[in-house]
C-alpha cells in the first residue's frame, strides 16, 4: 500500500484543486495562483485608491474646501494612504511577484508553507473590504494613515477601530508571507544551488522578509495599544491620562520607515531581473548588490526617528538619525550605479519593461536626492509635513515601486498568460504615466518649500495655479491606466502567442511552458547556477564591429 499510494495520488493531486478560472477564486495552494490573486486583487485596490487620489486632486483644484466636506476629505486621504500602502504596493511587490517567482528561482515546486500562503492572501480581501466599507457604514478613520494620537483617539471611534482591525489583518498577512519567503529561500533551494547563485530578487525578498518579520509585530502591538486607548480608555498615548504621544510616533515609525524598504527593496530586486534580460548583459556587480541589500536592511531599522525631527527629539538623537539616514544613500547608490553599468555597453531592447525600469531609475534618483536632503535636520525642520514630503515619498513609492510593478507586468505577462502584450500600447502607457507623474508631483516640491502643508483641504490662494498643474498631471495618470487595462485584457485573448521564452532569458521561470504547469516543471527543476550568464565574452567580440571603447572597457 505504501508503495502504490504515491502512484495513485500523483495524477489525481491536481484535481484536488479547482481548475479553470474558478481556481482564482478558491483557496488554492498553488503559488502561481496565489501570486495572481495578489496581483489582481492589489490592482483592484489600486484603482480604488487611485479614484481617491482623483478626489483629493479635485478638491485641491481650488483653494477653498468646496468639493467635499472637510471630514470626508480627511477620511479619503486616510483611506488613500492606507489602501495604496497596505493593499496595493506591499501585497503586490511582495505577495504577487514573490509568490509567483520565488519558487521558480529556488527550483522548488511550491512555497514552503502552501496553506499558510493561501491564508495570507485570503486575509487581504476581507480586510480591504472592511476598510473601504467603513466609509459607507460609519465613516472611515480620519486621522491620516499615521493615526497619530491624540487625534486618532478623539476622532469618531468606530472608523478608527475598523482601520486598526484591517491594518492588523493586513500586517498579519504580511508576516505570514515573510515567514514563508524566508523558509522557502533558505530551505527549499534545489540541491546544488548555492545562495550566491540565486537571482537578485531572492536576495531582495530575503531582506524584505527579515524587515517584515522584525518590524510588523511592533506596529501590531502599537495599534493594539492604541485601540485599548480608544475602546477601554487606557492611557498609553493619552496625555490627559499621563500617556505620551511621542512614544506612539517612535513605535509607529519603527515599522513604518522599514515599510518603505518593504515597498522598494522587492522593486529593486525585480529591476535587477528585468534589466539584464533586455540589455543582454550580466547584472553588474552581483556581490555588491547582495551586500547593499543587506546594508539597507540593517540601516533601515535604525533611521525611524527622522520622521520626528520636529517632535521634540533630543539633539543627540537628531544627529544619530541624520547620519544613519543619509548613509542609506550609499548602498542605494551602489545599486543604482550597478544598474547604470548594466545598461552600459548592452544591446538594449527599448520595450515597455525597459522604459518603465529606466523611468523608475530617474524617478527614484530624484526621490533619493530629496530624501538625503530631508535627512538633514535643519532642512527637514522647514519642509517637514509639507507638500515637499508628499512629493518626495510619491517619487519613492509611485515613481519607484509602482513603475517597477508595471515594468514587471510587461516583463512577466508572457510567462503568466502565454501571450505577448502590445508594445505600442505599452509605450503609450509609459509615456502618459511618466509625463503625468512628473507633472503631478514635481511642482509639489515647490509648494512645500513655499508654505503649503500636507493633508489640507484648503490652502493659501497663491498656490492655486501650481495645484491645478499638479491636478492636471493626476488626470493624465488616471488616463494612462486605460491603455494599460485594455492591453492586459485584450492581449489575454488576442495577443501574439509568447512561446516558452520570448525574451531568451536564463532564469528558471522561463525554462518551462507559458503558462507553467502545476508544480512548475515537467521533470526535474533545472539547475541554474548563472542566472545572469548573458553576454559575449570579450575575446569573442568581432574586432571589426566593436568600437575602440568597447575593447578598452573589456580590457579593464
Amino acid at each position: 500500500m505504501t508503495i502504490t499510494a504515491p502512484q495513485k495520488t500523483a495524477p489525481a493531486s491536481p484535481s484536488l484543486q479547482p481548475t479553470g478560472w474558478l481556481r482564482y477564486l478558491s483557496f488554492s495552494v498553488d503559488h502561481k495562483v496565489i501570486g495572481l490573486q495578489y496581483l489582481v486583487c492589489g490592482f483592484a485596490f489600486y484603482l480604488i485608491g487611485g479614484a481617491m487620489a482623483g478626489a483629493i486632486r479635485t478638491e485641491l483644484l481650488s483653494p477653498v474646501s468646496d468639493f467635499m466636506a472637510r471630514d470626508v476629505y480627511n477620511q479619503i486621504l486616510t483611506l488613500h494612504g492606507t489602501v495604496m500602502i497596505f493593499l496595493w504596493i506591499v501585497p503586490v511587490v511582495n505577495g504577487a511577484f514573490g509568490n509567483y517567482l520565488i519558487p521558480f528561482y529556488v527550483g522548488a515546486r511550491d512555497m514552503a508553507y502552501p496553506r499558510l500562503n493561501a491564508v495570507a492572501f485570503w486575509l487581504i480581501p476581507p480586510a480591504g473590504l472592511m476598510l473601504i466599507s467603513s466609509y459607507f457604514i460609519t465613516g472611515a478613520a480620519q486621522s491620516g494613515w499615521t493615526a497619530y494620537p491624540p487625534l486618532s483617539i478623539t476622532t469618531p471611534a468606530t472608523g478608527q477601530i475598523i482601520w486598526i482591525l484591517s491594518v492588523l489583518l493586513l500586517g498579519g498577512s504580511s508576516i505570514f508571507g515573510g515567514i514563508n519567503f524566508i523558509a522557502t529561500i533558505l530551505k527549499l533551494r534545489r540541491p546544488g544551488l548555492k545562495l550566491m547563485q540565486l537571482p537578485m530578487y531572492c536576495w531582495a525578498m530575503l531582506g524584505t522578509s527579515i524587515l517584515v518579520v522584525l518590524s510588523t509585530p511592533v506596529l501590531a502591538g502599537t495599534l493594539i495599544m492604541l485601540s485599548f486607548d480608544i475602546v477601554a480608555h487606557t492611557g498609553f498615548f493619552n496625555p490627559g491620562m499621563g500617556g505620551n504621544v511621542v512614544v506612539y510616533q517612535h513605535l509607529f515609525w519603527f515599522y513604518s520607515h522599514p515599510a518603505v524598504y518593504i515597498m522598494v527593496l522587492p522593486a529593486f530586486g525585480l529591476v535587477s531581473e528585468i534589466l539584464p534580460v533586455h540589455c543582454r548583459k550580466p547584472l553588474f556587480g552581483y556581490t555588491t548588490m547582495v551586500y547593499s541589500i543587506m546594508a539597507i536592511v540593517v540601516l533601515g531599522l535604525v533611521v525611524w526617528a527622522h520622521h520626528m525631527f520636529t517632535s521634540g527629539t533630543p539633539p543627540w538623537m537628531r544627529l544619530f538619525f541624520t547620519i544613519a539616514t543619509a548613509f542609506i544613500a550609499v548602498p542605494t547608490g551602489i545599486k543604482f550605479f550597478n544598474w547604470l553599468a548594466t545598461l552600459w555597453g548592452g544591446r538594449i531592447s527599448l520595450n515597455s519593461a525597459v522604459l518603465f525600469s529606466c523611468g523608475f531609475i530617474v524617478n527614484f534618483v530624484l526621490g533619493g536626492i530629496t530624501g538625503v536632503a530631508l535627512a538633514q535636520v535643519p532642512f527637514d525642520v522647514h519642509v517637514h509635513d509639507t507638500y515637499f514630503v508628499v512629493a518626495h515619498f510619491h517619487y519613492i513609492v509611485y515613481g519607484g515601486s509602482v513603475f517597477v510593478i508595471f515594468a514587471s507586468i510587461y516583463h512577466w505577462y508572457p510567462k503568466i498568460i502565454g501571450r505577448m502584450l502590445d508594445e505600442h500600447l505599452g509605450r503609450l502607457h509609459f509615456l502618459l504615466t511618466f509625463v503625468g507623474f512628473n507633472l503631478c508631483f514635481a511642482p509639489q516640491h515647490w509648494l512645500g518649500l513655499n508654505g503649503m502643508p500636507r493633508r489640507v483641504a484648503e490652502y493659501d490662494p497663491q498656490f492655486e495655479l501650481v495645484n491645478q498643474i499638479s491636478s492636471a498631471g493626476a488626470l493624465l495618470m488616471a488616463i494612462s491606466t486605460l491603455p494599460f487595462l485594455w492591453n492586459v485584457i485584450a492581449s489575454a485573448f488576442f495577443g501574439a502567442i509568447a512561446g516558452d521564452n520570448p525574451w531568451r532569458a536564463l532564469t528558471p521561470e522561463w525554462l518551462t511552458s507559458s503558462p507553467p504547469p502545476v508544480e512548475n516543471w515537467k521533470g526535474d527543476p533545472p539547475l541554474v547556477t548563472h542566472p545572469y550568464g548573458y553576454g559575449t565574452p570579450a575575446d569573442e567580440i568581432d574586432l571589426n564591429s566593436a568600437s575602440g571603447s568597447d575593447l578598452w572597457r573589456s580590457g579593464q
Partner: protein
Amino acid sequence: MLLVLGGLWIGQNINLLPVDASANAPIYDELFRVLFSIGTILFVGIVGLILFSLVRFRRRPGQLGDGLALEGNLPLEVFWTAVPAIVVLFVGLYSYDIYERMGGMVPLGHGNHGSETVADQRVWGGIGSTQDSQTATTAGIPPFPIEVTAMQFAFLFHYPDGDFISGEMHVPVDRPVSLRMEAKDVIHAFWIPEFRLKQDVIPGQPTVLDFTPTRTGSYSIVCAELCGPYHGGMRSSVVVDSADDFDTWLQSNRKLPAAEA
C-alpha cells in the same frame, strides 16, 4: 566639469524659497543652495547617463548578439561606494554645522550663545523652561516672551507683558522672541515658512521655540500637523513690526490697568 559648473550655477541662482525673515533663515538658505547644487549635479548626471546609454546601446534592427559579458569591476565599485560616502559625510557634517549655527544643538535647559544664533531647542515642562526664557543672549536683550496656545483650530497668543490675548502674533524686529507653546487637544505644528521654523506643539509637552525676526512684514503661520477637519483652515499671521510700531501695538492692547495708568 560642465555638469558640475552647471549644477553649481543652478543651485546658486535659481531660488525656490520664499523670502527669509528670521535670523536663521539665511543660514538655512545656505544649506539649501548646497544641497540643491549637489542634487542637480547628481540628477542631471544620472539622467544624462541613462539617456546616453539608451540611445547609444539600443538594439539596432538586425542585431541579435548579446552585449559585453561584464560581470563587475571592483575598482569601479569601490569608487562609487567611496564617493557617495564622502559626499554624504560632508553633507551630514555641514548640516550639523548649520544646525549648530541655528542653535539647535544647545543642550536642554541652557541658554543661547552667540549673537547670531537662534535657539531652536525644545524644552520640556519642568526642565528649566522658565530659566531658559529668562536667559539673556550675549547681545544683552532678553528674549521677548509670548505664550502660544494651539487648539482646534486656532493659535492664541498670550502676551505676559500686558496680559492680553491676541489672535494675531506681533513681534518686534531684530529682537529675540521666545515662544512658550502648549497644545490643548491634539498635536499641532507651528510653522512660519518665511522663518524656516517648524515645531510640533504636543499635548502634555510644553515646548519653547526661540527665534529672531529680521524683516518687517506680515507672514503666515501655518499648522502643519493634521489636527482635524479644519486643519487646512488653521492659519494665522505674524506681523513683524519695527520696535516703535511694536510698542504702540503693545500699549494699545494692554489690559485695563495699563490703560488707566
